[in-house]
């Protein structure tokens, strides 16, 4: 009965690849997403609603669309990709780094939304108080705004991480479904459903996915609680 919990090396490597891609994804988007979130939360400028819409576009488009656009842009024959390929010999298409980029594009809006909400809830009065004490606005951002919006930023990180783990459409369109390179959990499950007798292996990966998602949610909850406590906010 417990045999189902003994995962094979190939399953482990699928899991490891998925985690690696998701981890690089959140590292890649963390700083830009917080920056964009801050700009959207605190600044008003010409073209703000356009930026806002652009950031959110991947959320409302079918994922295959951003995947296809990435291919046109960053593929080996793509507008930018061909230079990367010809000059630096570097290609994103059909590599795990490309999978990171694809899931980053899809996860970015989730991270921005969370961080933006958190930043806009920080009392501007506190920022002004810090400035009146002599703190440069940049210092205020790092000592007041950022720590106070940390719970929301952590939520965003977990959301982005989970989104990246679950990414399917953009990934398969941009980087294909290559074993040990771009075949993440959802892609592997899909692959098994396409072959005879694939139901059981698919089911095992489904269980793995569910465990992972559950784990991420529980860690998120705990981190958020901790972060809330550290900024003196309490809730049940």
């Amino acid at each position, binding site marked *: 009965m417990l045999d189902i919990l003994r995962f094979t090396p190939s399953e482990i490597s699928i899991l490891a690849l998925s985690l690696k891609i998701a981890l690089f994804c959140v590292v890649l988007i963390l700083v830009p997403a917080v920056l964009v979130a801050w700009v959207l939360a605190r600044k008003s400028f010409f073209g703000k609603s356009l930026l806002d819409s652009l950031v959110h576009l991947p959320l409302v488009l079918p994922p295959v669309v951003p995947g296809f656009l990435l291919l046109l842009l960053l593929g080996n024959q793509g507008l930018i990709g061909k230079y990367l390929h010809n000059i630096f010999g570097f290609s994103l298409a059909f590599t795990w780094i490309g999978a990171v980029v694809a899931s980053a594009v899809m996860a970015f809006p989730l991270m921005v939304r969370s961080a933006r909400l958190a930043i806009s809830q920080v009392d501007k*009065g506190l920022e*002004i108080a810090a400035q009146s*004490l*002599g703190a440069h*606005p940049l210092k205020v951002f790092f000592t*007041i705004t950022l720590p106070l919006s940390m719970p929301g930023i952590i939520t965003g990180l977990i959301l982005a991480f989970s989104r990246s783990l679950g990414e399917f459409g953009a990934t398969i369109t941009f980087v294909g479904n290559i074993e040990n390179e771009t075949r993440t959990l959802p892609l592997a499950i899909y692959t098994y459903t396409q072959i005879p007798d694939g139901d059981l292996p698919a089911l095992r990966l489904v269980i793995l996915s569910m465990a992972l998602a559950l784990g991420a949610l529980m860690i998120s909850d705990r981190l958020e609680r901790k972060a809330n406590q550290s*900024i*003196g*906010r309490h809730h049940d």
Partner: protein
Amino acid sequence: MIEIQARLKRKHFELDASLQLNQRVTAIFGPSGAGKSTLLSIIAGITQPDSGRIVIDGECLLDSQARINKPIHQRKIGLVFQDGRLFPHLTVERNLSYALNFTPVQNQQFQLKQIVELLEIGHLLKQRPHQLSGGEKQRVALGRALLSSPRLLMLDEPLASLDDRLKSQILPFLKLVSDEINIPMIYISHSKEEIMQITDNLVDIQFGKVNCQL
């Protein structure tokens, strides 16, 4: 000496202020909506007037003709707000020491210890702002503003959100600071009774208009 000239026109409000303050402690008095807080936020650099000039002890903070406009963090004006505005993620001690970060040690007018003793907040140092009473919060806010070594201290209705019992936790300390600490002070309030306990130097502001030499 503090010289303030400011004009500001908004849809439903107009401010026209011209003040020359020679007393160390001055209270600005007026009903709510008269423009007290707007005037304060112009002096602090939070609100930009349409035109104006602010000079404190010979140093120009704002001169719209000469295109001088120092940002908030360079004005060295200590603010105490109605709601205290303590940083919720820092202990009382770190709220206080935050203010010391921006003045070189040799230019600091007070030490943390001095202020803690003066305002009797030693027992609160390890606590978080949400654990304090309203009066205690205001004492810490006052201490934090003093520790930033300001050239001017401005208090915006520091008692307005406190009941009588809590007021008695802070009023004596406000008197103490205004009597014993050699920093110019502007005290803003809508309550004449409250002001009379602090100072006799009164500036009256009505419908956004004030023109006074004191």
